């Protein structure tokens, strides 16, 4: 495999909770600057797989990863790796919009504050850019200091995106980002995903196959504890798992 075109590579990865396998074997790769959708029935371990990519399951009791996970050219389970730097490069957006009980702009710079030097400034340009990137700027530019929970669910999810984008990650992991939203907000998020793929590598977990077809170039299929590639528009005679 060519290192330069892949952002994430999994080699014979087995994920288990207290010995019970969630994913028996996963070998696949994610292309840079493309949208890859991870699909599969609920409870099949999609989210577990996604969370593994930025080591969010580190402290889950009994969770174990075997095999090799390479993200941006580095084995993420290398003991010398700084996991906080990894998570800075690999951002994640969750299913339920989660905003902190602070103002809108404080939410945007929340992660940035910890990574930037000098610490603790408000970064007006960076937050404006992040909000513009998340298609939220026009809706909130006049009330940046309002509490974030006054936003609608769809706006909150875009705020969560802006917060992640402000840290400037290379890879964006999204765990069913539209499943808690109404169709209109979902559409906004899908447009957003398409606009981001030039600059970011995006991995999107979704249970909605139509959505996967709309936004993704590549498809990864999780079923029956195995993970495999699937061309997005299968040609006759190939592409089944």
């Amino acid at each position, binding site marked *: 495999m060519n290192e330069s075109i892949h952002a994430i590579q999994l080699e014979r990865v087995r994920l288990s909770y207290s010995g019970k396998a969630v994913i028996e074997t996963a070998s696949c790769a994610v292309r840079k600057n493309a949208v890859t959708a991870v699909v599969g029935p609920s409870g099949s371990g999609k989210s577990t797989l996604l969370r593994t990519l*930025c080591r*969010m399951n580190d*402290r889950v*009791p009994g969770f174990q990863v075997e095999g090799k996970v390479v993200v941006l050219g580095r084995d993420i389970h290398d003991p010398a790796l700084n996991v*906080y*730097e990894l*998570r*800075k490069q690999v*951002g*994640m*957006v*969750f299913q*339920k919009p*989660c905003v*902190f*009980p602070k103002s809108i702009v404080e939410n945007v710079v*929340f*992660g940035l504050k*910890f*990574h930037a030097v000098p610490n603790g400034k408000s970064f007006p340009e960076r937050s404006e850019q992040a909000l513009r990137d998340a298609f939220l700027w026009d809706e909130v530019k006049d009330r940046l200091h309002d509490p974030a929970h006054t936003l609608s669910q769809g706006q909150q999810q875009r705020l*969560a995106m802006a*917060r*992640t984008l402000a*840290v400037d990650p290379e890879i964006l*992991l999204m765990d069913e980002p539209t499943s808690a939203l109404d169709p209109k907000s979902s559409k906004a998020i899908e447009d957003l995903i398409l606009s981001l793929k030039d600059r970011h590598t995006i991995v999107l977990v979704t249970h909605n196959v139509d959505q996967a077809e709309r936004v993704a170039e590549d498809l990864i299929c999780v079923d029956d504890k195995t993970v495999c590639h699937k061309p997005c528009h299968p040609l006759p005679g190939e592409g089944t798992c």
Partner: protein
Amino acid sequence: MNKHSLFPERGPAFWWTGFTALIAAGTIFILFVSLVIESVPVFKSQGLSFLWGADWFAGEAYGALPMIFGSLMVTGLAVVMVLPFALGSAILTSEFLNGRLRLVVKAAMELLAGVPGIIYGLMGIAVLTVWVRDVFGLIDGNTLFTAGLLLAVMILPTVMTLSEDALRSVPGEFRDTALSLGLTRMEMTLKVVVPQALPGLAGAVFLGLGRAMGETIAVMLVIGGIDRIPQPWFNLFAPGQSIPSKIGREAAEALGFDVQWSALIALGLVLFVMVMTLTSAGNLLLRRAR
């Protein structure tokens, strides 16, 4: 359907459990009403100056101020001293420990919570007063400070356990989000979890205050038992008196219907009102946190 709709089934089980429930719920009102009625004589003889009178001589004058002052002082002192330990161990247990070590800390706290007050009192009188006397170069180790220190140890499990509950009730999504933005665990804890749990933590502190204020036996043995506000008032290394300690010392000799008994009941009423205020505030905050 109309007036019976509240309790539709009225068999013997209803009447039996209803009777016991009435006892359980009625007790608190009986306590309050009895305190009010029995404290009437002292307010008749002293007027409201009972509350701010500074002198207490059985048979002559009854002033509650030194006791109220002493109670506030030792309680405040206890909370200030316990805070770093209770919050520190609550944060560690809730956010950083898991599995066996967490169980060990929790079990230690439950055992600590069960140590009888009289054992603390015995340790206070036999060890702590001597230690305070020698370390701070005092003539007598029975001081407000000693009582505050002992109370701090006694309320540690209460404040710690309730704080830990408050921290753990912060939803996991907030932790996930903070970590996914590249925060360290400590940054996540201090900037996300603790601020979110703040009402619950405040509730824990209020309940700790309430518990400390009502503690009798251990305080009684180490506070010095002098019904006087120290000179100057912030001199922690002077002997003093708290409300429960005063009641505990004098109740046996005043048992009956004298004005002195009524004065002790009135002290009990003051204590009851203060403790109920603190714990209601604490319970309110804890409820809001959930």
